[in-house]
């Protein structure tokens, strides 16, 4: 399904600010697999997702999706395979467009767009039914500008948009990190529901050990631009949150984990 081979990415190469974000990441994800990505700050988790989505081109290595070599494809062309939800709830929607218009845009993700009416009635009916399943009362407000909604509502809608046409690969980049705890729980539950119902191949970055322990069927831990742990199936299921924390501690001892990350861990567990 997804296969990255030895991908390398260095930002600001040759300057004092040089950052080696990805140092030869090899990752193969099977169809229908739900992979959790954790790691310290600056470990390259988000960079990995952005490299796969095509936000930038990698310096070397290759990326294949569905057997197609997409390494040199621009971001908008890869969108036919990929649905995305960003960390910032404002990134995934166009604020001055209505809820309905935003959803209509996602209903043609990766498909040619012509002079057909965007809000045609069949689609509108489907929108009302689908938005009703969010139980947020938004089905009556489809004509409202999406910018008037809360971060949690916008993130839930972004998730609907990313999966409106079944994506070959769903990329979730800390998509609950900027939400209040209640909205975060709602969005996580919604994500899990959609992913298991549609059997979506998913790559989800998270800072929450709770989410990392409870969700997914495979877990990879990144550090300094490489994958340092890769746990699957039974091993992943047996893994309690404490073990996860212990592995983080190992990393920290091995090389002075930066303070923000250890703070995050403290907040999650102490």
């Amino acid at each position, binding site marked *: 399904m997804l296969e990255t081979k030895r991908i390398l990415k260095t930002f600001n190469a040759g300057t004092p600010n040089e950052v080696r974000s990805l140092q030869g990441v090899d990752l193969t994800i099977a169809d229908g697999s739900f992979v959790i990505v954790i790691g310290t700050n600056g470990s390259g988790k988000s960079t990995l997702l952005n490299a796969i*989505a095509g936000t930038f081109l990698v310096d070397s290595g290759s990326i294949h999706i569905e057997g197609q070599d997409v390494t040199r494809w621009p971001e908008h062309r890869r969108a036919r395979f990929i649905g995305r939800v960003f960390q910032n709830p404002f990134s995934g929607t166009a604020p001055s467009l209505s809820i309905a218009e935003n959803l209509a845009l996602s209903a043609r993700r990766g498909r040619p767009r012509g002079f057909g009416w965007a809000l045609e009635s069949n689609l509108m009916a489907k929108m009302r039914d689908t938005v009703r399943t969010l139980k947020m009362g938004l089905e009556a407000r489809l004509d409202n500008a999406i910018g008037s909604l809360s971060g949690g509502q916008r993130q839930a809608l972004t998730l609907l948009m990313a999966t409106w046409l079944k994506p070959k690969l769903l990329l979730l980049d800390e998509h609950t990190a900027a939400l209040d705890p209640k909205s975060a729980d709602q969005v996580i539950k919604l994500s899990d529901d959609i992913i298991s119902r549609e059997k979506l191949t998913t790559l989800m970055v998270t800072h929450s050990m709770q989410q990392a322990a409870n969700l997914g069927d495979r877990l990879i831990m990144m550090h300094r631009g490489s994958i340092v742990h890769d746990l699957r199936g039974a091993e992943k299921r047996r893994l309690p949150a404490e073990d996860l924390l212990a592995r983080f501690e190992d990393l920290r001892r091995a090389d002075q984990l930066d303070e923000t990350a250890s703070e995050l861990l403290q907040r999650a567990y102490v």
Partner: protein
Amino acid sequence: MSLLIGSMTIGFILSLLALGVFLSFRVFAFPDITAEGSITLGASVAATLLVVGFSPLTATMAGFVSGMVAGATTGILHTRFNINGLLAGILVMTSLYSINLHIMGKSNIPLLTQTTFANTAEKAGALVLGERDSLNVGGWEVSARDASIFFFVILVITMVSILLYLFFGTDIGTAMRATGDNSQMIRALGVSDGNMITFGLAISNGLIALAGALLAQYQGFADVQMGIGMVVWGLASVIIGEALVGTRQLGFAIIGAIMGSVLFRLLVAIALRWGLNPNDLKLITAAFVFLALILPNLLAKFRVTRVRSPARA
């Protein structure tokens, strides 16, 4: 009365300019200066074709298409070659000055003997009104020629703005509006934001060149200098329109730009009538846009200090 209806006719013609400026400045937040060159381009292409003997319709449509090419050029310079948007517009505008001189062969083409859309409108008016020289509108004598041209122009503007409104409701038009709103999101949904900006600037400058083509035919000449200050003029119209009808809905924004253009032209006509030196016109227009841009912030500050000061006392 003739002055009034003449000003309103020009105001409606220039509302196409306002719509073009609305598209680039407001929908894309792209400060597109190409407009100053493309309005003249539309005028010079239309005038030259009329002199050669083409029909007003062909000449006007050719003006529209030439503007689209100019806008697409700016878009390509910006999106494919990563040139700053403002600079891309300046480059195209500057080169258009030479191109316009080449098209016309001289700096000014008079259209006194050619058949223009104004003559066509006059003939159509004669069919409706009969052989009368003037008609009575609410107690005012209006010449049949002025009235026919006025209604013809309104008809054209209505059609264009309805088409524009419908376009914004299509799949591609919605994607275009989203591009200006959030380019990261629209790329993630499989749309090339560069192509959208290029296409949008083509439409914007097409409309502006259409304004130039109609204006040249209405006033009876095309001049290589006629584009100077037109971006600020269009911006002033858009700002007045937003103050009049608000920005919440797209349809209102389009109607607002048209109303703003007509009202602004009327204000200018009245000011000139009262003895405003025409040389000061562009300075005053620029000062007006400056005020309109800083006023919201000033008002907000003023309100904050007014709320605070009683608490301090």
